[in-house]
């Protein structure tokens, strides 16, 4: 256990550096959301019209995929703490498969936008859409790599930090999905 690892009593589990990373990422995505809403002030109708071209059903399915993936990752940590390594690995693999499913749906969504000639330059709304969802997708890719590394090592102490990162990715989608796809 390192000096920066937080105590379990009264403080969240995991390394302090992971929490600094989580808070930094939340601030970055939060700033992106606030900027989107500020730019929207100049053209709310244009933003609503642009938003209507998004696939809300697909984004909703993606929310369920990530929430379930986060649940499986949290269960994996419980199993690893109880010394049930094979169960923990199985849950981590299932969590990663759902993460891949998220990226696959996201890829289909981007391909559909490209087929309709929609890019980041089409409208300011799409600039934020591609920026926020693309940056989030990059975090999903990083999270998948972490999940697979955790699956290989299966050390409960290391899992705490890696899985906290995966939950952060989940939390960011909880924030950006309704604002980008639904709020109009």
């Amino acid at each position, binding site marked *: 256990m390192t000096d920066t690892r937080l105590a*379990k009593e*009264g*403080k*969240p*589990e995991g390394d302090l550096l992971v929490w600094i990373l*989580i808070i930094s990422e939340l601030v970055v995505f*939060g700033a992106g*959301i*606030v900027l989107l*809403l*500020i730019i*929207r*002030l100049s053209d*709310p109708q244009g933003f609503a019209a642009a938003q209507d071209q998004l696939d*809300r*059903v697909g984004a*909703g399915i993606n*929310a*369920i995929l990530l*929430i*379930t993936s*986060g*649940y499986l990752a*949290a*269960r994996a940590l*419980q199993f690893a703490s109880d010394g049930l390594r094979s169960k923990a690995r199985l849950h981590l693999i299932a969590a990663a498969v759902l993460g891949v499913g998220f990226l696959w749906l996201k890829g289909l969504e981007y391909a559909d936008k490209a087929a309709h000639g929609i890019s980041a330059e089409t409208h300011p709304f799409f600039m934020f859409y591609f920026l926020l969802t693309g940056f989030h997708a990059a975090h999903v890719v990083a999270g998948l790599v972490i999940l697979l590394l955790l699956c290989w090592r299966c050390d409960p102490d290391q899992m705490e930090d890696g899985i*906290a990162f995966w*939950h*952060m990715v*989940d*939390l960011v989608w*909880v*924030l950006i*999905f*309704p*604002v980008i*796809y*639904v*709020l*109009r």
Partner: protein
Amino acid sequence: MTLTRAWIALIILSGVTSAVAFSPNWWGPFMAGVLLLLIYAKGRLVLDRYLGLSRARRWQSSFAWTLALFLAGCYALYLMPLIR
């Protein structure tokens, strides 16, 4: 609340969020408020149960207040074009 119950609650809240997406436009400001409350509820569940902040009261309270203030700010920005 157990982890499994938190997951079920998150699935239900996500379903409600998707249902809000297809609500009539004239309910816009009301539905936006509902939507932001749903984000708050889901955010709290992820923070408290998935990230384990329910075992760290001060951190839990700080994150909850920050999230609430952030969403209140978002709602103010959403309402501005309607009241101008």
